[in-house]
């Protein structure tokens, strides 16, 4: 039964509600996503999200490809953070096939996924401010920093966004000392940039007026609808898979998890800014003591040349990581052949989108757009 | 020089003609929104006439109050009752000859009165144009009582409107 919100109209004349389609081509719905909204004046009465415009049949295609062939496809899931998608998939298959990863490769994986977290949170803040109406200035400052990190990714993996950089048991190629140096320079300048960015935004009265107490996500609703990632932590629940699972080397680095109190749009924005500061701490520690050594587990080297010989044992496995948007899980079932029998992705954006209706009801049209922006969804991951 | 003030007088008469046409249009136009716009044209025309009589303060006030505020209110009402303005109301019905007869009789008496009364006509261009300064002094000096009475009256109307608007809260 679709939930709806009744406006207590005091005057006698019954106002007619206005059905508006914030359709696939709407300028601010991050890709092709439609909201069928029923408006009473300015207030939203019912809201029905419509998805599936970007469905590319990812999981069916994966069933006809070798395990290595799927890797470039995972870049295109959440096209902002290709590296964390690769990491999630690589870890799931390594768990299934029982492959260990050498020390240096683990360090490179942590560095690369923390850089992706910086990119993702930067772009989110930029797009959120764009929906609020700041004419492209915050997003261009964010993209200026993102360019530096993308250049480093291009130096390592060969492509800026579609990196296809990780392999089962390690990474494709090594970090040259020059690249390490530029990485250190970026992490040194990043806090300075963040202070300037916060000076521009965090205390801005208009931003506070527009974002505070808008789209409040209560704790129990967040837990019941299995929300994960910064959206959950903004509502005050301490659940970060890097701390819970302690996968890869995250137990070696000292970092803390920011938690909000009210769980409204401003908290979701500010928790991400604090997370960026924590990621910079992890990066400093990781770049400090990265060991020298091999970057690919020698046992998996022959499979690099002949991916169709890579036949993980029969069985199923579910590997999950803390992607910048939430818990990104890969469920892989292998039947001994070089092609996975079943391959499914637990996309954080898709799950976070289910509560859009509950937190948007009763707000105004302008708020619905910001709430959608603060949930940080990417349609590539939602529709797969 | 006489060509100039001849052109002036011709201008005034064309202005009056425009106002008349707009007034007739306001009454006969089918769509409500169009007649509202015709009303705006009439009000701007009246402000034009004030200007020709060198009462520029009055002309500005006319535009500010009528065109700026009253017209906006009327158009707000028209826009809010959306479907009302769609059906175009039929303007003329069977009683139009009777109505025209009535109007002619009324016009006849009016012109009779206008012709007979001795208007205190001064020469075309008065000497001192009344500036805003003198108007201000007159309001605060000679007519201060009337001025205060009107403001009290306005406030009463304002409060009445608010009370009606939220009568069942």
């Amino acid at each position: 039964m679709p939930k709806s919100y009744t406006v207590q109209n005091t005057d006698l004349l019954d106002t007619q509600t206005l059905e508006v389609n914030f359709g696939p081509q709407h300028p601010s719905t991050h890709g092709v996503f439609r909201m069928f909204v029923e408006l009473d004046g300015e207030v939203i009465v019912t809201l029905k999200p419509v998805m599936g415009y970007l469905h590319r049949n990812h999981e069916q295609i994966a069933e006809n490809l070798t395990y290595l062939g799927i890797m470039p496809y995972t870049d295109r899931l959440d096209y902002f953070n290709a590296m964390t998608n690769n990491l999630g998939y690589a870890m799931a298959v390594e768990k299934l096939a029982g492959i260990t990863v050498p020390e240096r490769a683990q360090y490179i994986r942590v560095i690369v996924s923390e850089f992706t977290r910086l990119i993702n949170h930067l772009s989110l803040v930029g797009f959120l401010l764009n929906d609020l109406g700041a004419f492209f200035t915050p997003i261009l400052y964010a993209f200026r920093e993102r360019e530096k990190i993308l250049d480093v990714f291009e130096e390592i993996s060969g492509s800026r966004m579609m990196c296809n950089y990780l392999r089962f048991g390690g990474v494709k190629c090594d970090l040259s000392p020059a690249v390490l140096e530029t990485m250190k320079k970026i992490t040194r300048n990043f806090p300075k940039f963040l202070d300037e960015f916060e000076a521009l935004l965090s205390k801005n009265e208009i931003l506070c007026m527009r974002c505070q107490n808008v789209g409040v996500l209560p704790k129990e609703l967040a837990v019941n609808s299995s929300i994960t990632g910064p959206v959950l932590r903004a509502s005050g629940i301490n659940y970060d898979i890097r701390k819970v699972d302690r996968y890869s080397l995250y137990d070696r680095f000292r970092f803390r998890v920011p938690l909000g109190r009210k769980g409204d749009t401003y908290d979701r924005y500010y928790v991400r800014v604090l997370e960026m500061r924590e990621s910079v701490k992890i990066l400093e520690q990781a770049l400090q003591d990265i060991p020298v050594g091999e970057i690919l587990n020698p046992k998996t080297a022959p499979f690099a040349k002949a991916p169709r010989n890579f036949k993980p044992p029969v069985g199923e496995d579910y590997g999950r990581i803390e992607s910048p948007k939430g818990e990104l899980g890969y469920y892989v079932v292998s039947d001994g052949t070089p092609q996975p029998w079943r391959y499914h992705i637990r996309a954080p954006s898709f799950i976070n989108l289910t509560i859009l209706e509950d937190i948007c009801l009763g707000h105004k049209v302008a708020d619905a757009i910001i709430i959608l922006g603060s949930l940080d969804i990417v349609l590539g991951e939602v529709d797969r | 020089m006489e060509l100039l003030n001849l052109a002036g007088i011709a201008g005034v008469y064309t202005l009056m003609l425009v106002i008349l046409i707009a007034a007739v249009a306001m009454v006969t136009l089918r769509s409500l929104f169009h007649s509202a716009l015709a009303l705006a044209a009439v009000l701007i025309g009246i402000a034009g006439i004030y200007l020709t009589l060198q009462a520029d303060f009055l002309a500005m006030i006319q535009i500010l109050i009528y065109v700026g505020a009253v017209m906006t209110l009327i158009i707000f009402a028209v826009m809010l009752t959306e479907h009302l303005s769609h059906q175009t109301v039929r303007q003329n019905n069977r009683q139009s000859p009777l109505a025209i007869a009535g109007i002619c009789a009324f016009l006849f008496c009016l012109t009779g009165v206008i012709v007979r009364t001795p208007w205190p006509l001064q020469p075309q261009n008065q000497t001192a144009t009344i500036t805003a300064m003198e108007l201000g002094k007159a309001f605060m000096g000679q007519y201060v009582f009337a001025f205060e009475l009107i403001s009290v009256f306005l406030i009463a109307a304002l409060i009445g409107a608010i009370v009606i608007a939220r009568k069942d809260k």
Partner: protein
Amino acid sequence: MEILDSIFLNTKKIFLDLLGCWLPDWMILLVNIGIIIGVIAVLGPVIMMYLTLLERKIIGRMQNRIGPNRVGIFGILQPIADGIKMFTKEDIIPQNADKIVHFLAPVLMVIPALLAFAVLPFGRGMIPVNLNVGLLFFIAVSSTSTICVFMASWASRNKFSILGGMRSAAQMISYEIPMVLSVVPVILSAESLSTYAIVEAQARWSGLHWFVFTPWGLLAFIIFFLCGVAECNRSPFDLPEAESEIVAGFHTEYSGMKFALFYMAEYMNTFTVSALAATLFLGGWEGPVLPSWLWFFIKTHALIFVMFWFRGTLPRFRVDQLMGLAWKLFLPLTLINIFVAGGYHLISDRNFRVAGASAVLLVSFLLFTVFLNRKYMPEKRRYDLVD
């Protein structure tokens, strides 16, 4: 400096004397008026074209990028390229739109924008029409543009433009009142409505004599300027064309030349409002060394820079906050400002009246922001970093 100062007046006088020898004198009067009208008719659109270029350059620089520089040396010919583009674009009229009103709306939108030029004092002696109700003329003219917004939104008959039309009309009305009231202290101290006399009043005082340096003048200037920004629908009050919510507000259904007319009206409003703000509070063409008309343009372009600066930085208000700001903050402040300005003139002792006035204004500002409008104030937020 005198020659440079009245260079335009002299050229006009020479030109008219030249014509004088074979034209009757009343014809000269008409030619004089014709020149003035011609100057405004040319000045308006040219200013509009180069303001669009200026805006894109300034906002570009704020975002560390260059801004248009392909057409012409520094993008000088960019506005001409935009103009040609606007001319050649297909002019689509929606099928069930109301043809006449759809056509009339942009035309009537430009008229008030151009009329407002008639009252601006461009320099010493260079004021197109020295009405003794100049200021009132400006306010009356700028209030008629609400009707054109209504016509545009009603005629295009689609949901988004009606929503946009309603919002912008409500915004224009509620920002007109604080704008008018914030001008009252200036009239009070300049004892005249004519803009020319106001500029002379600011020149007459001794020492730093612009109205902006008096406490009530500063508050009135800030409120007048912000209401001016709201009046021409520019950021952070640009709700009607909030592209993230309702696509383009009342000019969704317009394309080609009609859209260019809306665009022109908005930029001319920007120029006239900043020019008037400069005239009323920053001493118009009054300045020490440079010729008078140059001072006028420097001050106006400084205020225009501030408007572009707002657009490059600030997010936009929501509808109810926008209205709340006008009715709950600007209106009471301007009313108090009028009383304070009155008191300011009665007290003769200089520094007591300055201290007293600024004290009262500061207290009222805090009263209206921190105590009465607590809902709009940003809350202090604490975040706990957990292990």
